[in-house]
């Protein structure tokens, strides 16, 4: 099999991993030798027609796998074509692409062949070769196998900028149904181990040792392969951020794969739901919302028609309107239409002048969005009874519909409406 054929099989196998970040690592350049640089912020070198960025060469070392996780295109029982890169093929492909400025670096993952350690050794060897033999200073993200020995995970962290283990599914039950060989507590233990390494290397870093995964660890959860609601997903994510110090949790709408298992829904991927989860995740991390303010047992799913910030505001009308000229930062952050950057700017402007609607307009803030919630120098919103009606009038939640026709039986052709 030639390199192009291998690449198309092993990139296809990797594309269901959402992460493509190349940011947040230490600064490096190649003036003293080698090739590559990192500046701390990532670069998206291209965009595919699905709107996703291409920052890293995202491939599998091999898509042969001894596991049989139902949601995965590479599971043992899938009939996809199989291929395997040699270590040098991956190394050379990375360097060739990097030299031409196609990519920021490599995101390497692998199906499990023989056993977890055997596989992990080869993944680590690719990273070692790039760093030690080619002086590669670009970004490396290694997908780690939770069942691999901790020595190998430690080595991975020494060569890589980021390491990740996918929890894949938010609950133990989901996992036992769809990924029988995986085990949530083992995954969590491996993550905890990585966190421990990151923390301790950081602590002794004053002694200028090598950094351990300077861009931290991340994970991914598949959304929509089971009927687990958003509340379980977000609570799990919150716990992971908290206990494992994760940099990112990625949410990946379960998307039809070639040769899918019949036990999975064949629906258009729930992209809106995925988007809402990212919004909620953002609110939790940067806007000080708690997961239970957005979803809870009585309202287990995010609204698909309204973004979670607006939903919270509409359901908490007694918090509004707020005075833009006096409200503290954490209150301003809860105003729909105001982002972190604009809130920070408004706080600075406030030191010099009283803020009116024209100021907001010049900052590029949508007056239509914010005006029901804000008091400014020259604006007082009408009383907010209409919040109620806004809530009641909204359309029936699409969320339920997503599961009404699970697993993929639909007569009215609503599957993939945008496919035409």
């Amino acid at each position, binding site marked *: 099999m030639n390199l*192009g054929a291998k*690449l*198309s099989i092993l*990139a*296809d196998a*990797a*594309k269901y991993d959402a992460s493509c970040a190349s940011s947040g690592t230490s600064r490096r*350049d*190649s*003036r*003293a*030798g080698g*090739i590559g640089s990192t*500046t701390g912020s990532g*670069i998206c*070198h*291209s*965009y*595919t*027609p*699905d*709107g*996703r960025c*291409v920052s890293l060469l995202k491939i599998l070392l091999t898509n*042969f796998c*001894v596991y*049989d996780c139902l949601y995965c295109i590479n599971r*043992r*029982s*899938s*009939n996809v074509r199989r291929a395997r890169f040699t270590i040098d093929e991956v190394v050379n492909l990375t360097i*060739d*692409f990097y*030299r*031409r*400025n*196609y990519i920021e670096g490599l995101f390497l993952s692998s199906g499990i*062949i*023989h056993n977890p350690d055997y596989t992990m050794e080869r993944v680590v060897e690719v990273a070692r070769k790039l760093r030690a033999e080619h002086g590669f200073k670009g970004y490396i993200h290694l997908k780690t196998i939770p069942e691999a020995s901790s020595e190998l995970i430690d080595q991975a962290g020494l060569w890589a900028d980021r390491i990740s283990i996918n929890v894949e599914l938010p609950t133990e039950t989901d996992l036992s149904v769809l990924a029988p060989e995986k085990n949530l507590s083992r995954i969590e233990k491996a993550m905890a181990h990585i966190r421990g390494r990151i923390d301790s290397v950081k602590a002794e870093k004053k002694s200028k040792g090598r950094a351990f995964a300077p861009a931290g660890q991340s994970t991914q959860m598949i959304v929509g392969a089971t009927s687990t609601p958003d509340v379980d997903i977000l609570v799990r994510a919150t716990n992971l951020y908290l206990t494992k110090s994760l940099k990112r949790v990625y949410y990946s709408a379960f998307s*039809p*794969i*070639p040769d*899918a*298992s*019949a036990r999975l829904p*064949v629906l258009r991927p729930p*992209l809106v739901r995925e988007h809402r989860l990212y919004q909620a995740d953002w609110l939790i991390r940067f806007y000080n919302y708690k997961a239970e303010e957005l979803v809870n047992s009585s309202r287990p799913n995010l609204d698909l028609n309204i973004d979670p910030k607006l939903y919270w505001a509409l359901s908490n009308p007694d918090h509004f309107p707020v005075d833009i000229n006096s409200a503290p930062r954490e209150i301003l952050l809860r105003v729909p239409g105001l982002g972190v950057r604009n809130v920070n*700017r408004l706080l600075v*402007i406030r*030191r*010099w002048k009283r*803020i009116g609607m024209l*100021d*907001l307009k*010049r*900052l590029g803030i949508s007056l239509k969005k914010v005006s029901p919630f804000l008091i400014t120098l020259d604006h007082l919103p009408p009383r907010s009874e209409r919040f109620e009606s806004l809530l009641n009038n909204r359309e029936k939640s699409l969320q339920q519909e997503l599961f009404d026709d699970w697993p*993929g039986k639909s007569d009215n052709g609503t*599957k*993939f409406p945008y*496919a035409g």
Partner: protein
Amino acid sequence: MKRLDFEPTFKCWRETARAALSAELSPEAISWSDGEATQLFEPMALESNQTRYNVPKRFMEVAERVVCHRSQGRWDLLYKVLWRITHGERHLLEVFSDVDTAALYKMDKEVRRDVHKMRAFVRFRHVVQEEEAWYVAWFEPDHHIIRINAPFFVDRFAQMRWSILSADECAHWDQRHLTFTDGVRREHAPNRDEVEELWRTYYSTIFNPARVKTSAMLAEMPKKYWRNLPEARAIPELLEQAPKRVENMIKASDAKQEAEIGKAVVPAADLDLESLKKAAAGCEACPLYRNATQTVFGEGPLQADIVFVGEQPGDQEDRIGRPFVGPAGAVLDRAMMEAGVVRARCYVTNSVKHFKWELRGKRRLHQTPNARDIEACRPWLEAELRLLKPQYLVCLGSTAANAVFGRPTKVLQNRGKWMESLYSKQTLITVHPSSILRARDPEQQEKAYGDFVNDLRLLVR
């Protein structure tokens, strides 16, 4: 109003602005001219001046980028902001909503975005010049950013020789020095590179046709960049094929939904071979049962030391209901006898227990079971092997080897030696007897048969 002539560089603008400030020239009194715009006003000469003005560092940082902006108004705007900063509004850059500040930051943002896009979308092409490797790119920036952006590429590609060509200005790095030359035309840049085909393959493959969202792509990668991006050529075709690809995935999956239920469910653990066989007779875990006459379960005594695993029953086995009773079975029988293995003391079974076939004319033609068929049937094989705990386990052919080892295992590379598997410490891989029947000529056949017998002799040593 008077005209101030100056070179359009940050340094020149700074000196001129300093002179204008010390001459107390208000923004309304002068017009800035870098020679590009029409010259309406009288020129004016200013004495150079070394007065130091204390302006916030932030202003100098922003100004250095804003001078790269292509808009003519940038000089007037910069001076206006500078004037206000030095005339009682030192905090002006903190009033983000001020009309001049907002305009300045808008320009700054546009330049920064352009800088970022250049770092993203420059595509080097490899050429050999005078026996030296050079990487040459053509880029079309919106603003005059080649110079301020070059150090980024030096950091990144310090050990390469490279040039970035543009219509305004070109940057060159020879592994030591960064130099700039005048702009050139696009035709000066190389038009191909040997790696681009692979890059397009990668780009096309990483795209998920089930998530088409062109607006998101266009927001970040506007069409104006496409003609210099080798991968963009693939976009129209990707979009055209996407609906079809998704439809095919759904069709395939719907068909399977019909057919596939999942894995065989083996009844509770403490069974004997006979009840296993009875349970398997009603197995509908995969669609193969529909076209087969019956389940063909393994056969032999529970005490058997040797277990043979084949692929699947054939036409005769399917009709009779016993494994290895057709032509391949005959070859196996003969070879076993020759090697000194007594079939009656062995257990003989298959990886897949139903006959998979397709109709060719009037014949039912054998079809190799795929990974899913093997997976669906695996619980039966596992249950048999758990009960038998064979001392010796023989895999006949690659389907059996894959089923026993749980991963693709090559027959010819591994045949004739003892290996350890989950089910037996002494597992042997050899060819399937039917492969001997398919040999090209009698000579080949004889050799294949001899090798097969030799493998089986390992069992009696």
